């Protein structure tokens, strides 16, 4: 069975689609009321975020657009030290999309939401004409998280002299997976799409002084750290030897001339943590789900003399230094 324009008409076909796919998988006491809007309780400050997801292929090694759409929004909420609670789900389906594929994606969203401890409480579906090519779908998720009473909200402007920079695992897995799938290169690389709830919760429960925290997505580590360095007017020193990258991703980048510093992930975060807390933070992340390859990769230097500040500097394996600048262009594979 395929998605047809009738599924977006608002009539019986729409109701059937919602019942048989969305309501079936998302099912919870708030959503089940199927009201115009979901009404939920709450007394703390809240964090709100939204993100849209477009990816080809829809299903890839290690995940699918459904898992991605939950992880992306949940991780964004976590990065403000909030506890993710609720998500919305807006789906734009292309006519001709296989209903089995849709079911798989929505089931995966539900499972990932369950893993992350969030509820999908309202949603919307539209159908658009297929303009040629494999029919796809676009998902938008908005999320609400409750800010912890005791939380000092980390931010890119908040890095302090002596902070340690920690990355929660291997770089570039998701990016290499998607590029590999599009280019028809067979390898064992899998997307790292994952909700980082456990590690963030444990860090905050243990009172770790997290000065800045970001999930490493499009633009990669280089882009996030440049934002940290420029917002906090500091220098970040990285050590190439310490950067965690799997051999498969390293080879993939080598062949295509891609720079690992700008390769995206969907289940990794980078933190700037007070020096005295760094070892503890490192152990907590390492012992959390999805944190087994976490590594301390650098440190922060902040002085009053602006001349000394040189952005993000990578100390290379052979003892050289290079600046990690902003990313330009789309990171296209080179010609030879």
């Amino acid at each position, binding site marked *: 069975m395929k998605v047809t324009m009738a599924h977006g008409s608002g009539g019986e076909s729409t109701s059937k689609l919602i019942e048989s796919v969305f309501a079936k998988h998302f099912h919870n006491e708030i959503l089940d009321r199927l009201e115009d809007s979901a009404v939920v309780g709450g007394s703390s400050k809240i964090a709100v975020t939204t993100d849209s997801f477009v990816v080809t292929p829809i299903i890839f090694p290690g995940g699918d657009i459904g898992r991605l759409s939950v992880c992306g929004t949940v991780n964004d909420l976590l990065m403000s030290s909030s506890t993710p609670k609720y998500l919305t789900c807006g789906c734009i389906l292309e006519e001709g999309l296989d209903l089995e594929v849709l079911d798989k994606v929505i089931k995966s969203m539900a499972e990932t939401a369950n893993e992350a401890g969030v509820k999908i409480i309202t949603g919307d579906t539209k159908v658009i004409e297929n303009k040629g090519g494999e029919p796809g779908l676009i998902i938008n998720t908005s999320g609400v998280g409750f800010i912890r009473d005791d939380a000092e909200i980390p931010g890119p402007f908040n890095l302090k002299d002596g902070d340690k920079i920690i990355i929660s695992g291997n770089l570039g897995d998701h990016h290499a997976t998607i590029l590999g799938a599009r*280019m028809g*290169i067979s390898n064992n690389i899998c997307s790292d799409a994952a909700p980082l709830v456990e590690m963030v919760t444990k860090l905050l429960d243990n009172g770790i002084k997290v000065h800045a925290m970001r999930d490493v997505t499009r633009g990669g580590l280089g882009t996030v750290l440049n934002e940290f360095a420029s917002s906090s007017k500091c220098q970040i020193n990285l050590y190439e030897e310490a950067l965690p990258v799997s051999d498969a991703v390293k080879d993939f980048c080598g062949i295509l001339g891609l720079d690992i510093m700008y390769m995206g992930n969907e289940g990794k975060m980078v933190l700037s943590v007070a020096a005295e807390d760094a070892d503890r933070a490192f152990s907590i992340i390492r012992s959390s789900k999805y944190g087994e390859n976490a590594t301390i990769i650098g440190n922060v230097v902040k002085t009053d003399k602006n001349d000394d500040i040189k*952005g993000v500097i990578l100390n290379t394996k052979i003892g050289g230094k290079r600046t990690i600048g902003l990313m*330009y262009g789309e990171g*296209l594979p080179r010609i030879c």
Partner: protein
Amino acid sequence: MANKSFQEIIDFLKNYDGEEVRIMEVCGTHTAAISENGIPSMLSPKISLISGPGCPVCVTVTAVIDKLVELSLRPDTIVLTFGDLIRVKGTEKSLADAKAEGANVRMVYSPTETVTLAKEDPDHTYVFAAIGFETTTPVYAMVLKEAIEQDIHNLKLLTSLKTMPEVIRWVVNNGGGIDGFIAPGHVAAITGSDVFKELSDELGIPFVVSGFEGKQLLMTIYALVLMKGKKGIKNLYKDVVLPKGNIKAKEIVDKYFCPSDASWRGMGKIKGSGMCLKPEYSSFDAGSVGLDEDHMPPGCSCAKVLVGKVKPYECPLFGKSCTPDNAHGACMVSTEGSCYNYFVSGRR
């Protein structure tokens, strides 16, 4: 060199205080590897590395881009291209600009894909932008062989193929002031290291064939500093580069292509510095002959940068109006371009 430890070599290069040595890397992949490894920060100010004309995208004249743009705007034609060529501006537009206007431009990742695309869609002409050096030419030859074997005639090549030896001669004879060359590893794997031995004998300048690992590049630079003023060749990339090169690759290239003059961005036409389709395969040519015009953007120093007369940051546009997102010259577009590399890695 064998008696020195790697640490001693590092110390030597950092503290070198002899006569100034100017070393040119002629290969774009070397330019990128040198930046990635932070090698310039490890050298004494008396040792300068100069990026030469070895980035295929950077040396492509605007007439070739213009031709590709024109072809891509024809309703019955689809232009296929590798990598970052898509962003290089012609006289007015890049292929990316044309694509945004609805032109048929597709990026391909594997050359065999081009044959499949053409085969499955006989109603359109597929034009493959065949840009590159000795390294990539065998790939285009393979595509042609495949197309001929499968009797596919709606796949054509727009060639702008370059060869290294003549342009190296040109750089030396046009005031580059180069004391030694890091010979291009990938090119040498095809041509063989003997080609560079002949060049060294003729020009009286040393060549060292290098791979792309940081450590090997440092050893190469060390060897070239010691060899300054003498002719000679060393091959530090012996696992990959043989004296006679890759015979099979050379054979397939010779079957379909023959030497020709070629136009280089900012340098003009250099005799015998390229390859073109042999006359018997001209039906596979999408119109590559006579594409010599070259419009350098006003103020752009690419021409001087490509031959080492000017460092990228000495160009008045560098980092000001010319950045990777708004590149005036091709050297700022390609990830192997010298301006791009100097800009993103803060190289000086």
